[in-house]
């Protein structure tokens, strides 16, 4: 059963989806989380200059992004705190596990939820990743 077959409103708070490309590893969500259930590891890398004669840039590359749904209380503060729209609500709820440790979802599973995020209603001209249609 999924959110649609269960007849849930599409803005239900089911699970949190991670758009990895938008994440800058800024740590804001991990610090705002009242439950301490977001784990982020990253490392700095130097990118070559975008244009000839430019300066090389330091970027943070994500190594780990995980949410422990055994702790998460679905407050949505991480989604509000994210300045880069890397986190989104999805109405999907069906991810029970036989063991509590398996409720820690790593970035591959969090990323897979992105396909279930409903489009933003206020911006009908944007797709669910925030890009123009």
């Amino acid at each position: 059963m999924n959110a649609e077959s269960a007849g849930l409103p599409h803005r239900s708070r089911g699970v949190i989806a991670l758009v990895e490309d938008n994440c800058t590893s800024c740590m804001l969500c991990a610090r705002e989380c009242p439950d301490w259930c977001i784990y982020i590891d990253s490392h700095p890398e130097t990118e070559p200059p975008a244009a000839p004669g430019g300066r090389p840039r330091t970027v943070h590359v994500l190594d780990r992004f995980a949410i422990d749904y055994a702790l998460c209380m679905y407050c949505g503060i991480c989604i509000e705190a994210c300045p880069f729209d890397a986190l989104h609500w999805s109405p999907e709820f069906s991810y029970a596990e036989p063991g509590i440790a398996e409720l820690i979802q790593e970035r591959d599973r969090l990323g897979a939820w992105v396909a279930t995020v409903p489009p933003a209603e206020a911006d009908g001209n944007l797709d669910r990743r925030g890009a123009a249609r």
Partner: protein
Amino acid sequence: MSAADVLTVVGATASVTEEFGCLTVDVPAADWLAAASALRDDQRATYTYFDWLSAYDDLDAGVAVVVRLWSPSKRRGVLLRTRVPHDDGVLPTLTGLWPGANWHERETLEMFGVRFEGHPNPIPLLLPDGFDAHPLRKDFMLASRVAKPWPGAKEPGESDRDLEPSAAPRRRRARPPGVPDPGSWGPAS
């Protein structure tokens, strides 16, 4: 029911405010039972339904105890509030007016340490035997917050190994709000 009407029911020692469309009546602790009784029985008030009772830690102002009452006939609610000291705060029980206040007062007793005089069964409701603290008070330390490392301690571009003692030291680390400095609380202090 207007604020002035409520005052005529509960007496001049009360003060009434309206916040977010809800009437809040503050009374001295000595008038707690009389005010609740008047709100229930007065024909102008008719707040006969006991919704819930709880408390919150109001720091220097003591512990604020709140009960929400509802008038089924007039379809409106009211909050009745009083403040008692942190140490040995005592209120008369409301179980004589509403038997359903029993569990609410037991929970308020264990979570905030407010005693309800005349309560028929003042034993803990949710906490295990021998739990010797009031966990919803603001000075109650969450042991898990000391035992578990804060995931937000890392700076952008860091991973867990940067937090190990062998890693190169860096400037002062961000600390989670409401958590004591390392070593200042718990068995390590």
